[in-house]
């Protein structure tokens, strides 16, 4: 079934809570669902004959600071009917809250923890929402567009000098050394010898 057919089905049941964007020229189409009805819609998608989206393929998020929303994107696939669907839920960027899909698909557990970790979206009803990938005491949500790096962590800094700088310093000191040892000798050696091609 194509996205628009599924949209018609959902519209009959959920009204304006499910809306479709105009289909893009290339790439995938998607449906936008109101956060309050997300679980209901998903359960409907999973259990209705003819839809049967048994596989929650992916759950992730995209940050849109310009629109001040974080979109949670859910990709669904049906093994039996071989069709797929993209659902989007918008959440306010200030305090993003989206209901958890864990009751519908267990695989949402880890996906939601990851989104919580990297975007700071809170999933209500999730059994065990804590950071997944980053350390527990990490500050900030890195995949947000306005994330600023803290610069290092627990006393480990994150700067590394360009090794060429060090090489150049060694070069320069060697050259100065050579010039010094050369200068007591007859003044024939001019200080400004053409430098060998600089490493830096």
């Amino acid at each position: 079934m194509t996205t628009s057919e599924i949209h018609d089905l959902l519209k009959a049941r959920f009204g304006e809570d499910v809306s479709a964007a105009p289909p893009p020229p290339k790439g995938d189409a998607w449906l936008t669902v109101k956060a309050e009805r997300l679980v209901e819609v998903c359960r409907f998608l999973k259990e209705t004959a003819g839809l049967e989206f048994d596989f929650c393929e992916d759950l992730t998020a995209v940050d849109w600071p310009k629109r001040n929303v974080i979109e949670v994107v859910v990709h669904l696939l049906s093994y039996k009917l071989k069709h797929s669907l993209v659902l989007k839920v918008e959440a306010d960027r200030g305090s993003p809250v989206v209901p958890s899909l864990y009751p519908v698909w267990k695989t949402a557990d880890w996906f939601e923890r990851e989104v919580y970790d990297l975007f700071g979206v809170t999933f209500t009803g999730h059994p065990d929402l804590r950071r997944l990938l980053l350390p527990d005491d990490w500050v900030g949500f890195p995949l947000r567009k306005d994330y600023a790096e803290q610069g290092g962590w627990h006393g480990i800094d994150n700067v590394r000098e360009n090794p060429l700088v060090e090489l150049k310093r060694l070069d320069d000191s060697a050259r100065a050394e050579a010039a010094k040892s050369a200068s007591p000798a007859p003044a024939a050696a001019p200080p400004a010898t053409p430098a060998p091609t600089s490493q830096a």
Partner: protein
Amino acid sequence: MEKLILRRVDRNNEEMILNFGPQHPSTHGVINFIVETDGEVLRKAVPDVGYLHRSIEKIGEVTGWHGFMPFTDRIDYVAAMFPNEGYATAVERLTGIEVPRRAQYLRAISCELARIASHLVSLGTMSMDIGAFTPMLHGIRERETINDLIEALCGARLTYNYHRIGGVAFDLPEGWKERTLAFLDHFDKFLVEFDRLISFNEIYVRRLANVAVITGKDAVDYGLVGPNLRGSGVDWDVRRDLPYGAYDDFEFAVPVGQGFKGTVGDCYDRYYCRCLEMGESSKIVRQALLQLPEGEIMAPKVARNLKVEAGEALSRVESARGEMAFYVVADGTNKAYRVRARTGSFTAMGIIESASPGLMIADLVALIASLDVVAPEIDR
């Protein structure tokens, strides 16, 4: 995490909390498990991942469209062709670039070789975890030959960076076809040898059969993919069911777990599905090499500084660890707005917490090995 480790345990019964990893030879990379045991029996094993979180998805937003390709290698370094292909396919879907047929064939060839190489490592390390060291050496020996072939093809042994948006980077070098066919002849014999060496070894079978059974329903619910899903008896393969690239040209079977030595969905089924899959991959490579069409290997006019119209696309490829999906969002500039890789190991890790209760500690190792998780796919 600390809360889990430092939780007070009841000293009256034999409850213990162990830290298993992150530096442990049988966790397949840097993965940590907080293991609650009662004597030798597991109460629960809680995975603690993220020790290899390299912010690849964030980097994808800064590099250009082409520039992200080397980073995809690092998403799954055991079989780096698949993320290459997944990312390239996603961008091609988004831009509408048509890949020439020859390039699609070359992609299939390189991917199937990578699949064999990956399964060899997976099966080798699995047997090493179970306690047999020799199969590992046999596996690595064959993998080295594949490495040589792939190196001749693209110049790298591990991080291939071979696929490009719109095609592949290099055509087959001279004599490569004959060398590969000779290797495949040898490899088919090796598979028989491998079966005799380890697959039907009595001790090995007993270590794996009926251990950590995952039912088909659970497997779908937890989002297992690839050999793990098929090991649980679900007949699904992206290559066959939603064909991409050149795969609709090839004849191949999809091995599905059927309780080869025990129950459907036990560790042995997952293991043996991989064994059989290697044979199928070898068949695909052979067919592809023999039917290889002539022609271009890159789509014409793929701009260096690629700009992609706003939109989004998801690509699915069947990687060695199951379905790998790349989700790319473009906003009309020469950089991706968001790149996301959905990988098989990530969801496979998610099931360990619920599949582990009641196992022995040694069986946990078998479970992890049979799920074939690699750390970078989990963490990215």
